[in-house]
């Protein structure tokens, strides 16, 4: 198991490098490019611009060598204060890509330097650490609701196959599976927020009463009134949550049902019934445990859709997470924020897939690594 984990982890490295390279080239080929965007930014001081132009080896040339150097500087492999082959070494004399404590440099994304936002001049990493918790909260809640509801609906539908519940859930699954996520969100906003006034239209907290989520001020406010904060975020989260999980629940409840039916037709389930085991025991212990296997794989495969869903949902509901940050920086051509969001999210998905694989190994005792 440990060996397998390490092998898979090493297998992620080329993919992660691919992500970094793709992000870099998206930035390179975008109109204007990072150099011009930085120079045109009104929010960055000249000293800051100088620092990043130098740290990222941006010289304004378009040759292959210059582009490769830019990539090296941006990634943190090269130190452009040195010339020629010495650029591979940091001021401390060690290889530049190593962490600073091991004699490496301090530029580039390898050292956590994602640059500054062109739109507001703040450090990219600071913006992201402010935004990430909101997304993790929404995605975590979504994952929980999604998996548990899909399981419950799917299992009941399978146990009472062709019953009323089964038919109703099949029909609803068809409908919800086909609804465009963003449109579902708009309709929910209109019905529950504008028409019924039950829930807030957007945001994560009421901006008049609470400081923005993720800021230190918010932490202080939560300390004063933790229950109020839970209620505030909870009511704001209902609609985004429904929007985010509707499609997944629709798809996966069908999947759970099929997987459960498969198992229910197996001989050992019949044996369990024949020997007089209580239905709860048959379905819970014998059937569900085995039906879970394909479900776990499927959920693992669908994690990227959670990200796509988060982009859509956060944009519609102005949820202050990574998804809305992505769309916002895309609108403002804020390259550095954009690339950081893409890279960090992609890395998280790659890692989440690895975890899903490992969980699969734990759930299925037949798997040998």
């Amino acid at each position, binding site marked *: 198991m440990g060996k397998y984990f390490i092998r898979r982890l090493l297998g992620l490295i080329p*993919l992660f490098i691919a992500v970094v390279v793709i992000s870099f080239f998206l930035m390179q080929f975008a109109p204007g490019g990072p150099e011009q965007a930085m120079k045109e930014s009104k929010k960055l001081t000249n000293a800051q611009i100088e620092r990043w132009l130098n740290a990222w080896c941006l010289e304004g040339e378009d040759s292959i060598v210059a582009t490769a150097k830019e990539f090296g500087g941006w990634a943190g492999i090269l130190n452009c204060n040195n010339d020629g082959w010495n650029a591979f070494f940091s001021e401390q004399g060690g290889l530049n890509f190593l962490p600073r404590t091991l004699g490496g440099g301090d530029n580039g994304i390898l050292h956590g330097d994602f640059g500054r936002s062109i739109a507001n001049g703040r450090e990219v990493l600071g913006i992201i650490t402010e935004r990430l918790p909101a997304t993790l909260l929404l995605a975590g809640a979504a994952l929980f609701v999604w998996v548990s509801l899909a399981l419950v609906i799917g299992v009941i539908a399978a146990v009472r196959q062709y019953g009323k519940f089964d038919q109703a859930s099949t029909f609803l699954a*068809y409908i919800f599976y*086909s609804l465009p*996520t963003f*449109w579902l969100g708009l309709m929910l906003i*209109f019905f529950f927020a*504008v028409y019924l006034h039950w829930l807030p239209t957007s945001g994560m907290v009421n901006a008049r009463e609470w400081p923005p989520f993720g800021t230190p001020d918010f932490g202080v406010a939560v300390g004063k009134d933790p229950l109020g904060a839970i209620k505030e975020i909870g009511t704001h989260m209902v609609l985004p949550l429904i929007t985010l999980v509707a499609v997944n629940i629709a798809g996966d409840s069908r999947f759970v049902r099929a997987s459960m039916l498969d198992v229910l037709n197996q001989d050992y389930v019949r044996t369990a019934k024949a020997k007089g085991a209580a239905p709860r025991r048959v379905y819970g212990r014998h059937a569900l445990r085995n039906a879970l296997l394909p479900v776990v794989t499927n959920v693992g495969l669908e994690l990227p859709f959670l990200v796509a869903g988060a*982009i859509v949902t956060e944009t519609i509901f102005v949820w202050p997470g990574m998804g809305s940050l*992505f769309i916002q920086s895309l609108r403002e051509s804020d390259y550095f924020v954009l690339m950081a969001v893409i890279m960090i999210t992609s890395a998280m998905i790659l890692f989440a897939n690895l975890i899903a694989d490992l969980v699969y190994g734990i759930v299925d005792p037949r798997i040998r690594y």
Partner: protein
Amino acid sequence: MDPIQATHVEGITQTGGVVEAGGPTTDFEVSLESLNQRQLAWRRFKRNRLALIGSSIFLFMVAVAILGPVLLPYDRLDITAVKKPGGNPPSLESIKTIFGTDNLGRSVLVLTVNGARLSMLIGVMTTIIAVSIGVTIGGIAGFFGGWADGVLMRLVDLVLAVPFLFIVLVAARFFGGGDPIIIILIFGLLAWPGLARLVRAMFLSLREQDFVLAARAVGVSNSRIIFKHMLPNAIGPIVVSASLLVAGTIVLEAFVSFLNFGVRATDVSWGNALSNSQGTLVQGNWWWAFFPGMAIALTVIAINFMGDGMRDALDPYSRGR
């Protein structure tokens, strides 16, 4: 049970009768039909009620896409006076007001009807591109295996490494320029990896089957084996996922255009028909977002029903029922 189905197998027709010496006479009446695979599939498809409903909705939408712009052409300057902030609610005064108007006074019906053409065109064209690339790459990888497989599948991994929606949105924003053709290219060039994986997996298993071995033993060329022997056996799942891709692309285009990164404002698609409609929701205008979105949802439901029907119909092992 059905009437006896005789399957046509290379000139031998199974009959229910007994052939006697002195001429073919039967000792009991049987209705005989010789159906090829396509006819069998069509027969199975026809029996699926949901698939038929889906097909009729889909055909209706296609008709709207073709006739809509002719019967109710979109004109940017054709606006009615807005009596209520957010737009006039639906009313039965005239044909153009039955879906209400947007905040500028444009008829939502005209927007919805005209959006059909571009949305469906983008869905279908994208799918054609993605299927061509996906089948080619997946087919080569699955048929030849070895290093070709390794290289091509790493390419697939590479395209899948960054979440699809990120790349699509970035590309549409920076390179799309509102041009539908470029949007189609962006979608098509990024949407193929799923299909490639599917086709590869099917080719890997088909390659080992006896009929392929037989064909190879007789000396049939690779291209003939691929196109005549293997592809027809893989066509079912390919058609099904292609139909789902059409539906998925229609929704994707709608979202991209909804964000104003997609088709330019002078063209109408379902997505940009309802872009900017979120702002008027709080003014009570639900119809602007509702009707174009409903058109998308109906089309997608219809395609999903059809896809399900085709999945069952094109599976040669699902007989009767």
